[in-house]
């Protein structure tokens, strides 16, 4: 009686199940095993055929499309959006929703730039060290995420409304501190991330790729990453499993906002100034959600990965570029953009099958 754990090798199921049920059991098992591998592969690659089609169509339409200089351009343009999409995807994975990433994307670089540049370049005149400015930018992101997270998780307020309010508040501050002006002319250190190249490759593209890769590996191989899926997939189960659910959720809101701030820094560097409309004024949140959802990140939480999110970003980037190259009529560009997003969604759903259903 000293060894209650010890058990014979006889199967509980083997004894209990009759012949028929056993066969049924084996059949379902075989089915799931084969189906399993195929399913996850399809889900992750759902957008690949679409990307290939766009590449082919683009090459036919415009001889400049398939060139290195064009692609580095797309890379630089899309990387700012991509970094924000990583942040929003994390938040979607825990079953959350954050509209305010677009304002963080504007306010964080605006505040930093305003403190860095001289009065003549629409700064405050504080002449803050640019490295401190970048730290400040990250801190702004973290602070916004923390406030959002605490209000939503601890205060149990509705995430949609909290972040909607936060969006407008932050965008107002962004506009207010510079009175509608756009600070520019900062030390190279501040603009480096968004404007520099290593060889022909933009630094922002490298950084964005690294962020995608690291986040993807983190989600797959780190306990916290797995906890994110558990929290989004079944909150009660995650809690019962001893996962510190609240901490994970707040942490993800913080991470998401910090990533949005980094994305904002990239965009500021790329255009060499922070315009008051960066983020909220441009309505980038729609592109952020579109990229994530086209890439298979579920709005209901617990489902999605970085491969999908990245392909969503690339798809939007390619389409945007193609429209620019083809000089699509300006007045119609939004309509085409929206149509492409809907089309990509439907296609991803058709290819991904039930796995891509909401």
């Amino acid at each position, binding site marked *: 009686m000293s060894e209650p754990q010890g*058990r014979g090798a006889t199967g509980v199921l083997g004894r209990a199940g009759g012949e028929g*049920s056993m066969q049924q059991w084996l059949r379902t098992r075989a089915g*799931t095993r084969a189906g*399993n591998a195929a399913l996850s592969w399809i889900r992750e690659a759902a957008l690949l055929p679409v990307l290939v089609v766009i590449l082919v169509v683009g090459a036919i339409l415009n001889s400049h499309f398939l060139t290195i200089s064009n692609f580095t351009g797309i890379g630089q343009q899309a990387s700012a959006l991509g970094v924000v999409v990583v942040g929003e995807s994390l938040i979607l994975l825990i079953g959350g929703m954050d509209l305010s990433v677009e304002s963080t994307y504007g306010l964080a670089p605006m505040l930093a730039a305003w403190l860095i540049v001289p009065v003549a370049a629409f700064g405050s005149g504080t002449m803050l060290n640019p490295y401190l400015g970048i730290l400040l930018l990250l801190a702004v992101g973290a602070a916004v995420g923390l406030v959002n997270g605490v209000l939503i998780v601890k205060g149990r307020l509705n995430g949609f409304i909290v972040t909607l309010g936060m969006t407008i508040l932050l965008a107002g501050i962004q506009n207010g501190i510079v009175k509608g002006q756009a600070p520019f002319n900062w030390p190279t250190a501040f603009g480096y991330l968004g404007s520099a190249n290593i060889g022909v490759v933009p630094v922002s593209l490298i950084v964005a790729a690294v962020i995608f890769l690291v986040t993807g590996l983190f989600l797959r191989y780190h306990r916290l990453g797995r906890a994110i899926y558990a929290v989004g*997939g079944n909150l009660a189960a995650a*809690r019962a499993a*001893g*996962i510190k659910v609240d901490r994970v959720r707040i942490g993800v809101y913080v991470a998401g906002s910090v990533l949005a701030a980094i994305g904002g820094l990239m965009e500021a560097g790329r255009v060499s100034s922070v315009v008051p409309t960066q983020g909220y004024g441009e309505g980038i949140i729609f592109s952020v959600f579109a990229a994530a959802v086209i890439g298979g990140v579920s709005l209901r939480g617990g489902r999605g990965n970085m491969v999908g999110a990245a392909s969503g970003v690339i798809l939007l980037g390619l389409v945007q570029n193609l429209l620019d190259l083809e000089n699509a009529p300006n007045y119609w560009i939004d309509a085409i953009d929206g149509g492409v997003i809907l089309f990509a969604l439907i296609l991803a759903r058709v290819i991904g099958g039930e796995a891509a259903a909401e």
Partner: protein
Amino acid sequence: MTVTTVPAVEAAGIHKRFGSTYALRGVDLSLLPGHCLGLVGRNGAGKSTLVSILSGILPADAGQVRFDGEPAPANTAARRTRIATVFQHSMVVPGLTVAENVFLGSQPGPGALVDWRRMRARTTAVMAEWGFDIDAGAPCGSLTVEQRQIVEIVRALAAGTRCLLLDEPTAALERGAVQRLFERIRQLRESGVAILYISHHLEEVFEICTEAAVLRDGELVLSAPLAGLAKDDLVAAMVGQTHHPERAVATPQRTPAAAGVAGAVAGDGAGARAGAVAGAGAAGSHAAMLTLTGITLDSPGTSLRGVSLTVRPGERVGVTGLRGSGMTMLARIVAGVVAPDAGSVRLGDRVLRPGDRASALRAGVGYIPEDRQADGFVPQLGVAENITMAIVDRLARFGFVSPRRREATAAPLAVRLSLVSAGLGQPVRELSGGNQQKVTVARALARDPRLIVAITPTRGVDVASKELLLGELDQATSAAGASLLLATDELDDLAICDRVVVLVRGEIFTEFTKPPFDRELLIAATEGLTDSPGEAS
């Protein structure tokens, strides 16, 4: 043998209060390794609260929980290695693999990283050690309910837990799976695992438990080895003094007792009913209330192959079978929720549009759905609004419904079903499971249906409410001359039926025409075992 004398789990003087209501009052409980304790009680008796306190989800106001003689660890992760709860609602994350769900929150790996290969290997090893066989790499979303439950049990075993708390584990399982689960529970028990088993089904408790504890109004009113107990003792303890146990429940193992349920439920109406049915029979089969012709449906999980069936006015027809036999699907087709691939549903001499619930409702088909959480009511809305949901067109004047008119209509139904609520405006979400089911039944009765389609209407409902619900269904049908189509795998419920049709793999296997129905024969028939419809002469 000293191990066995220290209880695996012990609760001493547990008190718990929610606001002004006492959920638990000084509950003492102990469970030795290798034993299985059946914890029973009516809805609201405090079972769920006790489960929550033992598994560490809720703190107790007073009292102590001990595992193997040591005070329970405060933090959830440590607690999890001492006692593991398999909840009624699945605690499996559908998007993650089996291995991940087994090691949820405690994945093996160097530091905080996850070593996928080791996690899968360890899952497979634990599965093999305990004789389970589920692919560690399969996503849990693709598993059956039974398999998910195994994942939860394996999760507990992998964490080294030797004390399992099973909260209504059979509620969502078909009969074969229930038997396999029982076999597993026995095996676990024999190898020294302590099991706390919570169930509404007393026969289950008698089948696999070694002792029983009964909660009533937050107090432990009985705790004894099952050997010296009869079912009536448990029922008496559950319902207390206000009830007559000899009428409450029949011993379902024997036929005369099953008839006893019918007697208790139908009361003195049994004779009158027989007369009514005979009369209907004399009127001839052309006056059938419901005529199903060649219902055929091919869907994943269930298929129906040319089912034809008639129900006469005032007749109560039970449909039973295993999960997957097409029993619930047939009922859903009649209710107009699902459209069959072929075949027709006729009510009186009118052919119902397939898959059109609204027109079926107007034609007079009341429907009590299987999953009351999903289809039975709108949880945020009040009792009265839910009950009158199907009859707003009758209550409304120019599209407006006054709350007073609504409540006046709902009140008699609520009274008839002894629905307990703080008022007819109380959101249904706040009611207990049994009362929620009463709302669903009231909604079906509200429109004076000519035919009521009910799918497992008593699932998850305590013994006393079960009797009441069945009685109400019985009365509603006999009083209004309505017919009843009752699809259920709870054989006790079939006692109110005049006739029982058994489906096996989508076809009518046999029919029992003469109540009382023999339980053993019914079970054999659902398994498709007997070829001669025994007493169905």
